[in-house]
Each structure stands twice: as structure tokens, then as C-alpha cells.
């Protein structure tokens, strides 16, 4: 039987990475996610599995270490929080351009700028719309529990290698810092170099006589070829949209109103839904698990059924734009959010739904 542990979300990420057979973690401390690196340093995964852990001199260096390791076909990752993730955007653009698999964990805090160390969801745009320069997408997973923090590590690595694309776990200070019970999957073996050469024939492991040299680059100076590369990338993103959408629905079958919320906001909203139902308001909750690809189709279907949709986010209104695109004017879509690290209360959500959709 698997052992159930009580752990912080950040610690669960680190333990899950060791168990997933990750080859390397390169990071830089920043609140509220420093426990990831701290846990690694305590746990000594170098002795447990041979996993390499390095505290880089900056977030910029850390993501470029991830780029180097990923190009060699290794299972590599980094984690950071909002201002740190902003610094990583250069590297993420290169990694997406060079089509390399890697995992990045963003435990969001309030911004802009240095902002606050309290939780926020204001990096939604940056995460799902590209973030760095150029047309690219990350697969973005939004955990709402410590268990999902752990589960999304191996899921993230699997998706990253399936698509040769960076995957982001978009968490926040609530999920990163809170403690919950968590159950881990059994230890996976790290791949040997021979296995990597077989599984990732594109990897820069050293040119052997049986193949041409492998080159990892995001550079193409001929515009027409660069366009072809972009077309190829867009096809890949379309395939993600067609096959990788994940979401959860609660009380949606008879819902007359719909709340859409992800991550820690979804937990607050589930309490609000309970209260509203007790007051006779038929409300359902849709929790997107993948923020890219977004559950556009499902929201569009629900828009035929409900009178209005409320997007609840810890920001000024970011995901609400994707909901409006999904709904395409069928019903009213409103936003409720708190900013700057303030966590919304369930009664505020109840009030917002009453004021903006039922009363309004």
C-alpha cells in the first residue's frame, strides 16, 4: 500500500519529481516557492536516484540550464514565482522554438513588479498566451490541491515529451504553501543514455558514426522556412487543443448559472456553489484543469443551458476573456476577482453572482 504523507504543495512537487525519475532541477529561490529547492537539498536526490540539483545564479540561468538539459533528452525542470517566471520567459521562448520538453512550475504571487508574496492568479495571460516573444504556447496545468501538485509533475513530463514542448504547472501561493495529504506514485527509473538515444533520437548526446550531427536551435534566417516552422508549431498546438483538454464539472447538470474558476479560486467557488444551492440558486462550477488548451467547447455547450457565467479569478479579469470567446455572445459573462494577494471569500462570490448575473 502506498504511504500517505502530509506535505506542502511545494514539497509535493519536489518529491513527485524525484519519484518521476527526473534527471535535473535547476532553480533560484523566490517566495512563495522556495521549499521546492529546499526540499531537494534536504532529500539529496543525487544519492536517491542520481538526479542533479543546482541552485543557479538567477532565474535566467536556471531556465537556460533547463534548455541545455532538455536538448540532451533529459527530464529537466525548474520552478519559480511570478517575477522569476517573467525572467524565464526568454528561455521559454527559445525552448518552445527549439521544441524541447521540460517542466516549469509557477507558484504565483501578486504583481505587477515586485508586488507581494501573497497568492494571486494574475499570470494567466503570461502563461497561456505565450509569455515570451514569438507565436508559441505552453501546455498549462492548474492544480487545486497538493495531490494535484504531485500528480501534475509526472503528467507534465509525459505531455512535455509527447509534444516536445514546455509544460507549465500554474499554481499559486495558496496551493504551494498549504499542507494536505498526498499519495505518491511509485519510483520510476531514470533513463539510461542508451534509452534516451532511442527515445529521443534528436537529442544532443554526441554525434555517433551512424547518424548525422544533431543540432538544437530556434534560429532560421530564411523567412519562408521560419514561417513553415511556425505553421508546424501551430499544428502541434491545434493537436493539443483537440486531444489534451482537461476539466472538472460540479453540479452542472441542472445549472442555470455557471461559475468558471481554476486552482485555489475553484476551491473557494465550490463553497460558494454549496451556499447558493442551499439558497435555491441552481449554480454549477466548471474547473479548467488545462488552461491551455482551454475547455472552450465545453463552456460553449454549457452556454446553451445557462443564463449567465461568472469567471472568478484572483486577478483583474484575464481568463474571463477566454470564456467570452468560448461563449461568443450567447450569454452574459461577468468577472469577479480580488487582486494584490487578497483571497476572495466564498460569500463575496455569492454576492458577486447575485449582483452581476441574477440581480443585474
Amino acid at each position, binding site marked *: 500500500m502506498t504511504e500517505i504523507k502530509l506535505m506542502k504543495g511545494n514539497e509535493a512537487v519536489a518529491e513527485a519529481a524525484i519519484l518521476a525519475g527526473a534527471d535535473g532541477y535547476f532553480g533560484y529561490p523566490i517566495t512563495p516557492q522556495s521549499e521546492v529547492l529546499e526540499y531537494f537539498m534536504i532529500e539529496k536526490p543525487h544519492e536517491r536516484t542520481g538526479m542533479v540539483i543546482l541552485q543557479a545564479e538567477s532565474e535566467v*540561468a536556471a531556465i537556460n540550464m533547463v534548455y*541545455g538539459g532538455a*536538448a*540532451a533528452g533529459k527530464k529537466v525542470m525548474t520552478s519559480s514565482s511570478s517575477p522569476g517566471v517573467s525572467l524565464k520567459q526568454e528561455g521559454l521562448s527559445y525552448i518552445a522554438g527549439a521544441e524541447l520538453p521540460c517542466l516549469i512550475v509557477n507558484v504565483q504571487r501578486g504583481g505587477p513588479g515586485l508586488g507581494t508574496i501573497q497568492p494571486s492568479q494574475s499570470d494567466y495571460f503570461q502563461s497561456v498566451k505565450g509569455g515570451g516573444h514569438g507565436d508559441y504556447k505552453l501546455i498549462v496545468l492548474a492544480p487545486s490541491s497538493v495531490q494535484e501538485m504531485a500528480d501534475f509533475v509526472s503528467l507534465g513530463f509525459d505531455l512535455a515529451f509527447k509534444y516536445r514542448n514546455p509544460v507549465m504547472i500554474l499554481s499559486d501561493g495558496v496551493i504551494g504553501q498549504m499542507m494536505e495529504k498526498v499519495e505518491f506514485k511509485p519510483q520510476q527509473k531514470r533513463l539510461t543514455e542508451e534509452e534516451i538515444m532511442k527515445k529521443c533520437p534528436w537529442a544532443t*548526446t*554526441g554525434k555517433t558514426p551512424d547518424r548525422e*550531427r544533431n543540432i538544437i536551435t530556434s534560429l532560421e534566417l530564411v523567412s519562408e522556412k521560419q514561417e513553415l516552422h511556425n505553421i508546424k508549431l501551430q499544428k502541434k498546438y491545434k493537436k493539443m487543443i483537440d486531444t489534451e483538454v482537461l476539466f472538472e464539472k460540479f453540479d452542472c447538470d441542472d445549472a442555470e448559472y455557471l461559475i468558471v474558476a481554476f486552482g485555489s479560486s475553484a476551491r473557494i467557488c465550490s463553497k460558494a456553489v454549496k451556499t447558493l444551492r442551499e439558497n435555491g440558486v441552481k449554480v454549477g462550477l466548471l474547473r479548467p484543469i488545462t488552461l491551455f488548451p482551454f475547455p472552450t467547447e465545453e463552456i460553449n455547450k454549457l452556454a446553451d443551458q445557462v443564463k449567465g457565467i461568472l469567471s472568478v479569478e484572483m486577478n483583474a479579469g484575464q481568463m474571463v476573456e477566454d470564456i467570452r470567446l468560448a461563449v461568443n455572445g450567447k450569454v452574459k459573462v461577468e468577472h469577479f476577482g480580488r487582486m494584490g494577494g487578497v483571497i476572495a471569500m466564498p460569500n463575496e462570490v455569492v454576492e458577486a453572482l447575485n449582483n452581476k448575473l441574477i440581480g443585474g
Partner: protein
Amino acid sequence: MSENIGIKDIISEENLVYSKTKLMTDKTLSYCPGCGHGTAHRITMEIVEELGIQADTVGVAPVGCSVLAYEFMNVDMQQAAHGRAPAVATALKRLMPEKYIFTYQGDGDLAAIGTAETIHACNRGENFTIIFVNNGIYGMTGGQMAPTTLPGMKSSTSPFGRDVELMGNPLKITELIAQLPGTHYVTRQAVHTPGNVRKAKKAIRKAFENQTLNKGISFVEIVSNCNSGWKMTPLDANKWMVDNMFPFYPLGDIKVDGEIVNK
């Protein structure tokens, strides 16, 4: 006798005294005629061939004139973002400690935008090789001032010559990193004469061989010309380099086996 010798005799195996290394591809170099990059590429790849480590070598290309180094060097290579090559190489070496890892970088890449990555990788004592081509100017971008541009030296962003009062001092990054405990071998070479090419090649060989010792970074600066950026003929550029660059960036070993060389 001479009428009996044909081209076939000349190129026959036993008569050949020199041929292009197979570790350089047949692709035409993108460098300006007279530029030192071609020679620096060639001697680097000759060393990889002579050591027989092609299957164990991964290179990291920079941004700048040598951004396309991977087109010419017949080894597995990664192209890094501006200045980030030492970070990329750090992960490569840590994850594949048995491989030979090198970065190939110019002065803008290594000594301006990548100063942090350079200093920290060197100070950590990462066990790879850095080949640093210093021509005192941003070549690919069109001849702008570099951190290594000499005082009084003209560039498109120092059109009346580098004014130290206004633009700051040139950065002797090689002397700087030689002070760091993580560097094992630091040397400054050039490739403008056959004698210098031989010395530079010897330095690169030592830099690669040092990786087996696992003692820290080997750093080979190659002072080179940029006849296009300097707006000179190749011959004039080499003369200008000898007269002006070498007094400021003197050739020779700076640190050997972890010890500063006192001249």
C-alpha cells in the same frame, strides 16, 4: 621527373601533409574573408578529431557572428540565447559528466549580456571549455561598441572613438575570471600567424584534455580581427590588432593548473 607527377600523386594518401578535418562540414563559412573565426573553428574541430572524441562532444553556439557555428562544426551542438551558453553548458556537463562540453562565444555574448552566466559558471568551477573570440566589436549586429572595444576605438556606437568618460572602460573579462577559484586554465591566444595558430591549437587541446581532470573551467581567449567592423583590409586589420589590441590584451597564459602565471 616532374612531368611524371600528376594531381593524383599529389593528393594520394602518402603524399598528403595536410587536409581539412572531417569534423568541419563542407558548408561555406559565413564569415568575412580574413576573419579569425574560420581558423578558430578549424583548430577546435581538429583537436576534437585528434582526441577522437566526436561521439562524446557537445558544443554550445552563441549569438553573434558565430551563431551558425553548428553549421560548420560536425559535432552535436546547441544554439543558446544571447550570453546564456555557460548556463546551457553547465547543465550539459552536470547531466552528462562523461562528455566533453564546450562553448564558443564572442565578446558581446560572453562579456556583456552573458557576464553573469560567464562569471558564475567559472566561479562554480564547472568542468567545461570556453572558447572566447574577442575582436572588440559587435560584428554581426553591424559594428557597434563591445565591452572589449579599446579606448579611442571607433565603432558605429562610438563613432568618434570610445570615450571612457562617456562610455566606460573596456572590460578585461579574461583577467577578471582568472582571479576566480573555479577556473583551472586561462589563456589568451591569437590566430593571425601560423605560429600563433599552433599555439592557440595547443591551448585548445589542453583545455579539452583538462576536462578529464574535472578540476574546473578552461578558458581560451582568442584575440581576433574584424576587418569589416574595423573597416580595414584583412592585412591592415591584423596589423592594427598587433599594434593596438595586443598591448591591451597581451597574449599568453594567465592561469595554468589553477595557479596565476607571474610574468
